[in-house]
């Protein structure tokens, strides 16, 4: 499937088309999540034809990151943070199975006690002077990313009485095109808080929720050092052949 855009002398230019992933993402209007109440549009979204701007995007990986940015346990003069040291790794793919190489992956998270290093977080759990909780890396030619961090703690929030968020790491992906931009959260296996969390359960398809849960992997676990978790991230695919411009049409 391609969209044709007429061009002066060269015949039609072929743009990739990213089919819309209906039913995958949570609705902006999700009453179980109180903060969504005044922050979701009441009017229906207007379908936007995909043009040059939508099928391109910032290719900003290399040059914006240092190798050390992928290790959230390093870089603090006081030493290592408290908590369970973990490795989080996986691939960024599109829904057709193509790797997304050289793309920026940014993460942020709470410390092992469930406290964020942020002025707004007043959870009475200790800050850790050796943990900031932000990391970034760029995927390799196979779409692989890898972080070293500590397992974040669960934490309370004020959505409803006795509300607790399951432990999670925030992930931000630029992808290859504006259409692929994604911010999401990675969870850990068998968390007892899943069934109680309105953010996790805002995803309409229960099977799709499972895609946010990482897997413990003994093969990724490094002896006497850190537990390994794997998590692949799948962005929207493009159902198109991209033609070279002179040959298009």
């Amino acid at each position: 499937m391609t969209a044709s855009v007429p061009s002066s002398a060269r015949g039609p230019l072929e743009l990739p088309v990213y089919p819309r992933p209906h039913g995958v993402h949570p609705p902006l209007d999700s009453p179980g999540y109180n903060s969504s109440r005044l922050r979701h549009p009441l009017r229906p979204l207007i379908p936007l034809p995909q043009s040059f701007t939508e099928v391109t995007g910032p290719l900003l990986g290399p040059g914006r990151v240092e190798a050390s940015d992928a290790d959230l346990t390093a870089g603090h003069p006081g030493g290592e943070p408290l908590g369970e040291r973990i490795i989080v790794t996986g691939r960024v793919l599109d829904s057709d199975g193509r790797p997304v190489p050289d793309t920026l992956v940014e993460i942020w998270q709470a410390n092992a006690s469930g406290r964020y290093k942020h002025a707004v977080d007043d959870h009475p759990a200790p800050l850790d002077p050796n943990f900031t909780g932000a990391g970034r890396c760029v995927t390799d030619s196979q779409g692989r990313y890898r972080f070293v961090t500590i397992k974040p703690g669960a934490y309370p929030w004020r959505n409803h009485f006795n509300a607790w968020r399951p432990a999670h790491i925030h992930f931000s992906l630029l992808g290859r095109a504006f259409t692929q931009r994604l911010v999401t959260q990675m969870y850990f296996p068998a968390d007892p808080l899943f069934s109680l969390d309105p953010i996790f359960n805002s995803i309409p398809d229960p099977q799709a929720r499972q895609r946010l849960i990482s897997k413990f992997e003994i093969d990724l676990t490094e002896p006497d050092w850190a537990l390994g978790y794997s998590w692949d991230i799948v962005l929207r695919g493009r159902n198109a052949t991209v033609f070279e411009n002179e040959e298009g049409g």
Partner: protein
Amino acid sequence: MNLGITPSQTVGPFLAIGLPWDDGPFVVPPDTSGAIVITGEVLDGAGEPVPDALVETWQADPESRFDHPDDPRGAAQSSIPGFRGFGRCPTNAHGEYRIITVRPGALPGPDGGMQAPYIDVTVFARGMLDRAVTRIYFGDDVQANATDPVLTSITDHARRATLVAEPQASGSEFRFDIRLQGDGETVFFDV
């Protein structure tokens, strides 16, 4: 192969730990000739500022080109030194954001005509489980806006106006508020 797409989740209240960049608002270096500033507020359904949002922009350069392999006209590095095409700015305590850029060139449209120049915008915030997508058009592109296929498809003129950044007295500054809900709600797109 058809892999299941990873669902979106909210950026939450602590996005400032991970997402802002020092140079985020600068789509072009600050001393770029012809640079413009786009500022505005992100407002909720009660008209209150949203102090924990992130606004991102993506656009063509003034010659209507992208340095990207999927542009069928060919990837073209901008003639503007340091042009990134991408902007990112968290809102401040007053819900305000600020992007420093240059005006994008016009792009060919699907009917053989031209589209009016525009910038694509993503809004993330606590309370938003998925991003919201909108566009910035320029209020002084009167003729181009009047024939743009996307703008003219929105028949309600008040709604259409929510997509248009108004030039300020200085001429190099444009105002673009984003109302997430209710009176004057910004037009959001399904892209």
